[in-house]
């Protein structure tokens, strides 16, 4: 029987949910379980209600499910919020003294004196460790692995703390395995295999590093900060310089300065920060400076929902920056793809000397998937700068070439000096007021589009060949749509999906091939205005059905899509 087990770990911020989730995830992945993990948290540091979802399977999975079979509830609120969503049957692990669970036939109530066990282990802060011990006992996971992990992850903390955590975990484990000896909720057996677990933030960060990033600047903004923090943590080791800027305008212009000087550089941000980079991105267009902008979307406008997910900035990245210039936009579907896309983005920014957007979102950034490996040979770092010693003189920074791309050198290369400029300029970068110069310059820049269009990347077809109904999706909705297709196919529906990772330049011909003749197309996206749907109609002039939208800050899931689909069937 295929494994599909869904665990929710819930509590308030500051209760240590993250530790429980991390150890559970690590151990499961190391044992060969495929996982999909996702996060739901509030814009606060303590209190409120947060939860992590860990879905477990024996084959690769791509999305979250709404009904957990197991709930670890660290406070009463967690029981109250999730109770009605629980699967039948389901289990709740909770503190026996402080949390009450309403009796129900479908619920198996695992009440453990977590607080007591914590106190007995040296303090009140080990409740989460006691809970993870209980969880391991119930899932028949190895206590030794748990202890090993706790040892490693608390290595930098005091001995006291490490000891307390291990003691509480062991106590939770022992108590639970004794009391619930007979309860069998073994999640199923998989072939033992070491899988890696990666989330979108790590994937983009490692991808940017593999893509040769030398300088990064950012201003903290949820949900993009994780990418910046990751690279900063590795900066020394990789000879990267990372600078937290005073604001996003500085971050963007620092990166442009670095890019003009000849190194690969990127900024990370989210909506509001992206808005502040609008002028800087226009400068990248004018001065033809390579730059990668990793924009991780959250719902807007303005402050919106700081810790939630959305796909609302598509129209903005398509059009950001006053004036006209070409750009690339990629929207990775999964963490795996985000890794390759990020390397690709670094290469393309330099190859075409244009801004390249990596358009992710909170759902992508905070969701983890298990993988066998990441292959650096799939998308390789490649330099597109003039080789030292090869600079033709006089060097024209904005040489009007057939491809529209001018040879790219760094300041002082081969003893040559040149200027990078933001005006209408001549080929050597100096200000011009000439109308012919202006016309030619614009045409040169846009000639790059010919090459850019060929940097092929999707769209991807999945599902029944010649399916009657097509779902069109882009970016991080991939997983939910893909699994909805699987489910619908099982129910004998004639469906398939066309998924976009490369958004701009729009893959017109490929889209026409895949979509033009289709009668029943429904675009799925995380926004109100159906922005991609609108783009699709503009670019290939097709009729689409009522789009399937979600704009409440939450990611799609299979159930949501199928409900909307079935509603329309009637």
């Amino acid at each position: 029987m295929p494994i599909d087990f869904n665990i929710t770990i819930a509590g308030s911020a500051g209760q240590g949910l993250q530790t429980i989730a991390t150890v559970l995830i690590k151990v499961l992945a190391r044992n060969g379980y495929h996982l999909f993990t996702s996060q739901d948290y509030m814009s606060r540091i303590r209190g409120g209600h947060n939860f992590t979802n860990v879905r477990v399977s024996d084959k690769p999975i791509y999305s979250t499910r709404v009904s957990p079979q197991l709930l670890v509830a660290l406070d009463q609120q967690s029981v109250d919020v999730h109770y009605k969503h629980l699967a039948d049957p389901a289990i709740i692990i909770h503190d026996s003294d402080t949390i009450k669970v309403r009796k129900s036939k479908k619920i198996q109530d695992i009440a453990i004196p977590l607080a007591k066990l914590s106190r007995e282990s040296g303090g009140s802060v080990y409740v989460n460790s006691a809970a993870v011990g209980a969880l391991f006992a119930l899932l028949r996971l190895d206590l030794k692995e748990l202890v090993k992990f706790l040892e490693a992850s608390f290595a930098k903390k005091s001995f006291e703390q490490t000891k307390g955590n291990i003691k509480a975990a062991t106590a939770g484990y022992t108590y639970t395995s004794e009391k619930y000896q007979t309860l069998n909720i073994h999640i199923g057996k998989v072939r033992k295999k070491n899988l890696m677990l990666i989330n979108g933030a790590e994937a983009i960060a490692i991808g940017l590093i593999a893509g040769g990033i030398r300088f990064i600047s950012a201003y903290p903004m949820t949900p993009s900060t994780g990418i910046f923090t990751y690279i900063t943590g590795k900066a020394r080791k990789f000879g990267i310089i990372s600078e937290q800027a005073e604001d996003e305008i500085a971050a963007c212009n620092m990166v442009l300065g670095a890019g003009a000087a000849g190194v690969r550089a990127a900024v990370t941000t989210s909506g509001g920060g992206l808005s502040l980079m609008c002028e800087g991105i226009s400068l990248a267009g004018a001065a033809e400076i390579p730059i990668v902008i990793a924009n991780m979307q959250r719902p807007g406008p303005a402050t919106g929902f700081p810790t939630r997910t959305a796909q609302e900035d598509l129209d903005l990245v398509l059009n950001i920056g006053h004036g006209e210039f070409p750009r690339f936009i990629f929207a990775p579907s999964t963490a795996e793809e985000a890794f390759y896309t990020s390397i690709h983005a670094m290469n393309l920014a330099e190859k075409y000397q244009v801004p390249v957007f990596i358009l992710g979102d909170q759902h992508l950034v905070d969701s983890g998937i298990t993988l066998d490996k990441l292959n650096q040979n799939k998308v390789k770092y490649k330099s597109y700068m003039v080789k030292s010693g090869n600079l033709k003189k006089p060097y024209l920074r904005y040489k009007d070439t057939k491809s529209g791309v001018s040879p790219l050198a760094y300041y002082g290369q081969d003893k040559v000096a040149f200027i990078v400029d933001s005006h209408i300029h001549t080929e050597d970068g100096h200000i011009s007021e000439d109308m012919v110069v202006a016309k030619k310059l614009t045409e040169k820049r846009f000639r790059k589009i010919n090459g850019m269009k060929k940097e092929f990347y999707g769209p991807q077809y999945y599902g029944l060949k010649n399916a009657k109904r097509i779902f069109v999706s882009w970016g991080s909705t991939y997983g939910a749509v893909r699994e909805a297709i699987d489910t619908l196919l099982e129910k004998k529906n004639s469906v398939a999906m066309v998924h976009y990772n490369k958004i701009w330049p729009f893959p017109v011909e490929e889209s026409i091939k895949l979509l033009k003749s289709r009668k029943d197309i429904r675009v799925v996206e995380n926004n109100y205005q159906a922005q991609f749907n609108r783009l699709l109609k503009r670019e290939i002039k097709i009729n689409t059905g009522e789009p399937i939208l979600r704009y409440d800050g939450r990611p799609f899931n299979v159930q949501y899509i199928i409900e909307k689909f079935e509603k329309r069937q009637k």
Partner: protein
Amino acid sequence: MTTRNYFHSSGERAWCPGCGDYSILSSVENALMNLGKKPHEVLIVSGIGQAAKLPHYINTNGFDGLHGRALPAAFGAKVANHKLMVLVTSGDGDIYGEGGNHFIHAIRRNLDITLVVHNNQVYGLTKGQASPTSDLGMVTKTQPDGVFTIPFNPLQIAITLDAAFVARSFSKEIEFTSKLIEEGVNTPGFSLIDVLQPCVSFNHVNTCQWYSDRVYQLGSSYNPSDKSKSYKKSSEWGDKIPIGVIYKNSRRTYLDNLIKPNDLPLIKRKTSIKGVESLINELY
């Protein structure tokens, strides 16, 4: 002065005849010669404005970016290639107005760059609106009742923020300005040289004569390393305006914390495939 200055570039300058910017350009050219630099070893970064056109009129590397954003761009370029000598030349509106936040935080970082502000106390290129340094009472089309916002004193702010080198000059004093630029370049860390510059078209208050009547050079008895004295000195404005090095200190520069003198600049560094492999392995 050397006979032929190979930083000098021919071609038209889109400045008004009589503008103080010409002198500042000469000072920059001279300073670079005196410093023994080659054009390709120098990068001049600017924003937008009359002053900010300077990189187009000199034979060095240039970055002419956005209004107000010269300092962050200069930061990125210097960090990317710390072997470059990086100079920022821009206007008072550009650096203290639109770019005010970068001015503060750039000084705090203390990266080894030199900032030359063409301070004409007015927005020149956009036709004479008040700038942050305009004197009280100056009447313009956008300040018809006269400026009543207190003028920004860049020197005092820079001293308060512990800039490594803080100086004022007057554009007419070409040699003097050159020397200050040289000294600023030779001082590790962030150097500010605020150069008073007549705008013959729009600033009819602070004219060349007005400045000439007031500026005086700080004598050798003046000690620029006493912060509170420097602070006081920098507040002088009106009948007497001091020019020269007002403040100097020698705190750690930004890159002292990150790069050893013999380290490769970022532009020469490579990422190892093995290194990336190790990151991937951490995920298991």
